[in-house]
Every structure is written in structure tokens, then in C-alpha cells.
């Protein structure tokens, strides 16, 4: 697992499930590592990513992620909050799309919501 300078680490991840494999940089080499683990029989539940990511605005290789998900049977969850469904079409690569409506759907900025 890549090291990442968060104070909250695996101990926090375990709070809500069996934990998480974290590829903080989101690089092609990370997908190479993931593919190797998958080929070795490691099973995963879901892959979470953001399109683009907050705050570095990086977009992962969704086509490759979709192909790995189809081959090895995990779900892809994409958060399109920053990209927004009016600008970026990500649904074809995802099993589930999530988003924060809080950012966009009230001009007064006085409502929270998500989907």
C-alpha cells in the first residue's frame, strides 16, 4: 500500500468496513500493481475514485479501471462532484455514481444534499 501523510490511517479505515487499499497518486503504475494483485487472486469489493479528484484535479484511467472491474468482478464507484454531470460523462464507466449536491443546487448556498 502506498504511504500517504494522513494521520488517520488504516485504523480509521477499519471503522466502517474491512479496510482499504489506497493508491494515493492514482498513477498507471498503481493500476499495474492492482492488476498484479487481482491476477494473484486478491478479491476486492469496490474501487472508489473521483473525477476529477479533489483537490489535485486528476482523472484516473477509467477505461482501464472498467476493464479490470469487468474481468475481476469488483464494482466501480465514481464521485463526479467536481466534474459535475453537465460537464463530464462518467456513467458508462461506473456501477454507481455519487455526488454532493450541496455544492451546486442552491444559489443561496443554504441546502445540503447528495445522491
Amino acid at each position, binding site marked *: 500500500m502506498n504511504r500517504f501523510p*494522513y494521520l488517520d490511517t488504516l485504523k480509521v479505515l477499519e471503522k466502517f468496513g*474491512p479496510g*482499504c487499499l489506497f493508491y494515493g*497518486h492514482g498513477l498507471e503504475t498503481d493500476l499495474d500493481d492492482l492488476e498484479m494483485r487481482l491476477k494473484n487472486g486478491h478479491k476486492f469489493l469496490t474501487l*472508489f475514485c473521483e473525477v476529477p479528484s*479533489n483537490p489535485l484535479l486528476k482523472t484516473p484511467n477509467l477505461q482501464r479501471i472498467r476493464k479490470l472491474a469487468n474481468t475481476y468482478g469488483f464494482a466501480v*464507484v465514481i464521485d463526479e462532484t467536481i466534474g459535475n454531470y453537465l460537464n463530464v460523462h462518467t456513467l458508462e464507466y461506473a456501477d454507481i455514481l455519487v455526488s454532493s449536491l450541496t455544492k451546486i443546487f442552491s444559489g443561496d448556498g443554504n441546502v445540503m444534499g447528495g445522491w
Partner: protein
Amino acid sequence: MSLPTWSSNVGYEEGKDWVVSKMSTGYPRCGWVRFYEYMDCQANMRPRFFIQKSITDLADLMLRNFGSVGESTMLFPSIRSANRCIKFLELQSKKSLENQARAVMLLPAVDERAHPRIVRTLRLAVLFFPSSLVKLAKTFWQHTGEGISSRQAHYCRKLFEEGLLVEKQIETRPGMACKGPKRYQKYESTAERSINHKTDLQSHDSGNTESVKTSDDAKFVEERFGRNLNLDMAELAKKAICRRVIGSLTANIELRQTEDMHNDTSNCREIDGLTDDDVYLYSGGMSSIFNTHQIMLSALGHFQSICFGWVFRFKYQLI
């Protein structure tokens, strides 16, 4: 909360007193943690996690009415959320909270004829737990987004103070039998007595007219200028949001006009068969992510997930 200048944003991130001392409330996950804490710098930290004042005021009111010494409280929109919090507190504190954590459910007990516009499906789950676990409980709210909204707090408080939101005792552990209809009838009949008494008062006491009028004026302003929608339109509004998300509603029209509008599914995100039933609304973005993860765990089993890329930090802590 507004940070209007670049320097105020930098000041917030660096924890400058001239910024953070002015912050009395803010976005719930506006927990102020300076960037360089991640670099193990020994800096002074004043983490702030904001719970909106109307929510904390209601929580204090619940504590005064139903709580005991040594307890703290957290408010949820359902017993299921409250039970998830208990499970989380037990897991993180590594101790059982049997007999130490309890949930009180409040719900409207009203005569529909006298109060046709009160939301009868409203529920307020008040969780009481040892005060030593307050920080952990806030963490649960912070990560899952499962607490109530300030609007719900305001609405519940108003009903509670008018005697229209009453307690239904339930057990802490799911699956255990509630103290059934008899107790509920006891409270319902108390509420009914309250309603009848109040109705009598209103018919004879013109002194109430001024406060009722002021409240109606405020409500008119809020609804007229689009800050709060009339509750009757809630279901239509949710449907409209779902249709906007999938792309079947793109016209710039009034909400009422959407009801009879043809649901154009010809260009729904270029995905065949996509309908507004495929969209689920949640109270916030983190709530949608938390619930997605929980649904997947239930549906596909307890396996590790992958977090790919530098994501919003609370998402990483959820999965």
C-alpha cells in the same frame, strides 16, 4: 461561513486567530486541521467541527427533557442511524454500551384534521450515550453525514415546544420488542388532550393571533423567495431533482409544471434504460458515499475496497 479573500483562506488553513476566532459555525466537515499536521509538525491545533446552533440547541433541549447526568446526546433522522452510531461507538471504544446507550424516538402525535400540514412521517431519533464518547460520536457524524439538518432541528423544536412531537420509547438493541401500542396510546392520548386543549384556546384567545401572524409572515417570506419550499411539494421536488440528475428534465420551468411534463428519456446520459428510479437522494454527499459502501458490503460481501487517487479525505476514512 464565508472566507471572502485569499488571505482569509490561507489564514484559515494556517489556523490564524484572526480567522478562526470569528468562526461560530460552518460547513459540518469544516474541521479545521492545518495541512502540516500531516507532516507530524508539533503545531498547536484547534480542530473545529461545526454542528449548527439550531441542532445543538435542540440536542440540549432533549438532554434537559430526557437525559441523565453524565450523558451526551446526538440527533438522527432514524433509529437505524442511531443504532449504527451505537455500533460504531462500541467498535471504536472496544466496550459494550448495553445499558449505557439508549435511543428515544420522537414522532408527531397530532389530529390530522387539526394539523393537516404537519409531516406525519417525521421522526427524530435522540441517542443518549456516555459523555466520555462525545468525540467519537462527532467523528461518526463527520464521516457518515447521518445527523439531522438544521431545518429538521428547527421544525422539530417548534413541534416539541407546542407539545406535538412526543416520545415513543424504544429499546437500544435492534430486534428487541418495543414496549408496544399500549405505551404509544398513552402518549398519543396525552398529545390528543394537548391538541384539543390548544384548539379550544385558539378558538377563544385572540391574543395568540399576533404570534401566529408573525410566524406566517416569516414562512411566507421564506417560501416566496425560494429559500424554503412548501412541504406539500417535497415529493415533487425530489422527483424533479432525480429527473434533472439523469437528464430527463432540462427545461427551465416552475416546479409545479414538471408534474405533468413528459419524461423525456431520449438522452439520459447516453445510457439505455436509465430512469429517475435509479437515483437515490441522501442528506449530503458523504451520506451517499457512506451508504453506497454499506450497501455494497451487504450485497457483495465483506471485502477490502480500493481508494484510487487523492480523494476528499473523509471518503478515505469511510471505506
